[in-house]
């Protein structure tokens, strides 16, 4: 573990990314304490520019809501949607990939054609359709994001499992009389963990972007303030009030950048071949 941190921290970008993400997470967790008021409440005159009143350093939006409060509460929604939908996507993708890769044959063919069916439909279009059918709510958004983002997971896991299943320790487990389920869970999957973790960190970033895009189009959960919603609501007034789309935009940019940097750092730290090269 100490070794892992040493290798992770050698990548300076990854450390910066982790620091940014930590700040975002803290803000999201402390939002109800720091900004106890509802982000939907009107607090001042509309279109108050940033840095004009100490109380509202980022100004107010078209109906006089505090932008800073909105950002903090939006962080909660964005991170939550990112994390939960990624976990859900992993829960769909890993079993499908593992079964396809381990058993091969017709099961592999069937599962991979099924996966391709999802891959051939453009992600975002499918997500819009799903959310529109199920009515926008936090659940339907998470479900839609998970449904469009599991195929790469299944593909990755299948590839890894394919190469691992012919390893000698897997053969030894077969000879030792272990059942297929045990072999997959005990011998194969733990060794696919590194690439999955890396992919997952990047998927959280994509999920945040997807949620923002959906909210931008007005398909977000109407009861929850999110970064995408803020940008979407501000798009009509972008020439009069630049700050309304600028600050949530920066928040999305930084969070996604942080997650990508972390993903890269994890890749370096978890990939022993690269690590050996640098040693």
């Amino acid at each position, binding site marked *: 573990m100490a070794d892992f941190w040493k290798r992770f921290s050698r990548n300076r970008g990854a450390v910066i990314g982790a620091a940014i993400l930590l700040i975002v997470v803290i803000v999201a967790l402390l939002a109800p304490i720091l900004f106890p008021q509802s982000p939907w409440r009107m607090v001042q005159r509309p279109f108050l520019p940033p840095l004009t009143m100490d109380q509202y350093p980022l100004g107010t939006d078209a109906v006089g809501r505090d932008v800073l409060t909105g950002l903090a509460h939006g962080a909660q929604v964005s991170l939550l949607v990112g994390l939960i939908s990624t976990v859900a996507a992993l829960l769909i993708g890993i079993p499908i990939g593992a079964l396809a890769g381990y058993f091969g044959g017709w099961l592999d063919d069937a599962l991979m054609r099924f996966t391709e069916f999802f891959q051939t439909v453009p992600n975002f279009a499918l997500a819009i359709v799903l959310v529109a059918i199920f009515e926008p709510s936090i659940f339907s958004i998470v479900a839609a994001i998970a449904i469009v983002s599991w195929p790469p997971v299944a593909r990755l896991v299948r590839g890894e499992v394919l190469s691992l299943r012919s*390893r*000698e320790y897997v*053969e030894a*487990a077969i000879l*030792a*009389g272990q059942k297929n389920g045990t072999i997959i869970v005990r*011998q194969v999957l733990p060794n696919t*963990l590194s690439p999955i973790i890396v992919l997952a960190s990047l998927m959280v970033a994509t999920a945040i972007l997807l949620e923002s895009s959906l909210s931008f189009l007005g398909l977000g959960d109407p009861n929850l303030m999110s970064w995408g919603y803020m940008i979407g609501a501000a798009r009509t007034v972008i020439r009069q009030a630049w700050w309304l789309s600028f600050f949530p935009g920066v928040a999305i940019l930084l969070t996604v950048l942080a997650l990508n940097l972390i993903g890269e750092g994890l890749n370096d730290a978890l990939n022993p071949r690269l690590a050996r090269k640098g*040693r």
Partner: protein
Amino acid sequence: MGEPVLSVENLRIALPEGADRPFAVDDVSFELRAGEILCIVGESGSGKSMSANAAMGLLPDLVRPVGGKILFDGSDLLRLSEAQLMDLRGRRIAMIFQEPMSALNPLLRAGEQIAEVFEAHDLLTPKERSARAMELLEEVGIPDPEKAARAYPFQLSGGQRQRVMIAMALALEPEILIADEPTTALDVTTQAQILDLIRNLQEKHSMAVMFITHDFGVVAEIADRVAVMQYGKIVETGSVDEVLDNPQHDYTRKLIAAIPTLATDRARGDVGKQPVLEVDGLCKTYVTGGSLFGRNRRVVKAVQNVSFTLAEGETLGIVGESGSGKSSVGRCLVRLLTPDAGMVRLGGHDMATLSGEALREARKSIQMIFQDPYASLNPRSRVGRIIAEGPMAHGVPKAEAYSNAERLLDLVGLDTSAIDRYPHEFSGGQRQRIGIARALALEPRVIIADEAVSALDVSIQAQVLDLLADLKEKLDLALLFITHDLRVAAQICDRIAVMKEGEVVEIGPPRQIFTNPQNVYTRSLIEAIPGRERELAAAE
């Protein structure tokens, strides 16, 4: 012997912090004289390749020379600029590597690769280059050089690839040829041919050859002088006769003693016991690349009509070169592969036709030890779990399985504290012991060892072979020992089966196989064993 052409003086190469020792090469001095073959021998990690790479300026980034000199033609190679080194490389000092497949560019035809050497040094016209390439291919004895020049590396055999490498190295008539384990990846008959070739070319061009190897058999075949390395230091140098026949240093003696000898007196009388494993008419054919319309189908008959029996307490060796089907036989027996035809009778069952639960049960009595000690243990499981997993899958309670694992670790000569550690904390030999403990955990009657010692250094190999022989006695196991190494087979086996192209061509006790082989192929295999002539001469 001639003048020294390359002299290494007090060379010291530092390893990065955190390595197992501070210096890869520590205060090493030796001379390479014109017209001689100097063998540098050592086990893995002894620093033998590092010394050669330093001369070529090919050290890895974090490993750097910190002291000493490598003098060549009046200049110190360690102080030359990259441009000066580039001019020397290939033109005056050439190198050949262990794995010709990865040393050749897979996308260039053999002829083009050789011509590229001239191009790199800006010599000759394109037309002359390809003509020269053809001459060189002819010189290194490739059959049908014109065809070989047009072939891509994957279309050539291992031996032919190594010949192309040698042709590239010879292209500019270098004064020094550095050969880093050039025959290790080759079959024994091919190895003999390549050694001959290097020997002949060395004499013809009067080059100095620095030959790096771990194999004393190869040393006996080719060396004029020998330097033995251990832990980055040269422990002994001398002429080949001095070192092999009268080694001075303890380590050299230990290494030479660890080499399995061919002179075998194993002729056990008690082998006629009950057969525990009977194999009858085993066949396995691989079909690859078959398209929908059946074109380009490649059919490989890996195992053809193989029959043998294995008695209780017997060790049967299956030897053969790569592609002879020896591993396929082993995998068919444990049903990692399903044979197309034939019977494998073990304890009243036919292993070849069982499936599901019955197969799972039957496999308890036939277990396998694998070749690669690094790939055969799950890197994310603790050693205790690795050994206990098998019995637990068969319903043994966890506590009992773990205490049994402790007993097994003790039995294979490891400390019982190993149980809580991960495989990467162990050396290759220790890992192989863990693999043996795992195979024993199910109390099998037959163990199949598939190249179980091939990846190990010779001294470790000797220890593991001793352990296997010892365990076999104690537990009354039958052992099927699959190997490409005839020396190892001679040492451990009661009977040897020689395989070629999927068929068993000869089977018999080692004495008969080695002194009076009946089959032509067996004879060519035996004759190709490196160091055999010297050993026979010494025995008389």
